[in-house]
């Protein structure tokens, strides 16, 4: 009898601080599996965000730098330019990437920085207690939108993948979800591709991953997985928005 599934080598053997059912853990594991499969653990540097994933440096065995809120793509730019033989990735939530860090991500993508961005979108601010984020859906109840997000007052939920896909510096851009086994497999493929375009020096690679926040959504973990299908995917469609060599 052989082992068909076990903890990837790049994933630290520790208990994470994430809430029960939080899909950050799945995404960490997928990144670790990709790092293992590409054999790049010793030359990979992650840049951690501010948000729930701020402690990601405790969970993946590569080197890490923690950046100021939203500035991970700028820090990753510096690391990659100083050490071009390293594989550099940022791991950012929607509060980090789509709100305070919007300028950094847009310009890093536009410059075609050879970095990989793992963008975890759960439509809410998790760490600070469930406030409305730029990605919060219309009508979604949060701590700061108790009657649901009002488009007239707060604007529309921001689709970062579609927006960034228009930039010529971007080589690979996909949106995936981790709310069921089939989607998890697709998410891993997309993460691998986003690392590959960096390794092949083709340009900027990013994967937007629709994630859950059972605690702040006020849902059981399994219900939160369904909520991604019911509410998030209709507004944030899955797919590859840009692949090397073509604009879709």
């Amino acid at each position, binding site marked *: *009898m*052989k082992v068909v599934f076990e903890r990837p080598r790049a994933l630290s053997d520790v208990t994470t601080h994430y809430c029960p059912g939080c899909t950050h*853990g799945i995404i960490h*594991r997928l990144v670790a599996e990709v790092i293992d499969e590409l054999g790049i653990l010793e030359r990979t540097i992650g840049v951690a965000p501010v948000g729930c994933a701020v402690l990601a440096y405790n969970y993946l065995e590569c080197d890490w730098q923690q950046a100021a809120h939203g500035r991970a793509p700028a820090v990753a730019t510096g690391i990659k330019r100083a050490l071009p033989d390293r594989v550099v990735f940022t791991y950012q939530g929607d509060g980090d990437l789509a709100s305070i860090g919007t300028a950094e991500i847009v310009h890093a993508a536009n410059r075609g920085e050879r970095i990989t961005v793992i963008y975890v979108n759960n439509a809410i601010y998790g760490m600070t207690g469930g406030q409305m984020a730029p990605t919060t859906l219309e009508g979604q109840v949060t701590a700061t939108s108790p009657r649901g997000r009002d488009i007239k007052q707060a604007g529309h939920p921001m689709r970062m993948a579609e927006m960034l896909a228009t930039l010529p510096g971007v080589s690979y851009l996909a949106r995936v979800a981790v709310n069921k*086994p089939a989607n998890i497999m697709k998410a891993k493929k997309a993460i691998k591709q986003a690392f590959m375009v960096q390794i092949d020096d083709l340009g900027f690679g990013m994967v937007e991953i629709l994630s859950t926040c*059972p605690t702040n959504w006020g849902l*059981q*973990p*399994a219900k939160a997985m369904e909520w991604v299908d019911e509410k998030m995917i209709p507004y944030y469609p899955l797919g590859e928005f840009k692949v090397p060599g073509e604009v879709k």
Partner: protein
Amino acid sequence: MPKVEFNVDRCKGCELCAVFCPQKIIKLSEGINKLGYHPATVKEMEKCTGCAICARVCPDCVIKVYK
């Protein structure tokens, strides 16, 4: 025969493995683990097919799968 092994003290009892298990053989234990949660467990291991879906949806990498 395929089987799964749970790292019991890492389990947070989120039940995602139980929900997605095609055989529906994963349940939460009566007792609690070191973290204070009811950890997932399998009673009828002979029904396990070793598909590893439980392990792939587990956010805490609790499950090791043999086949």
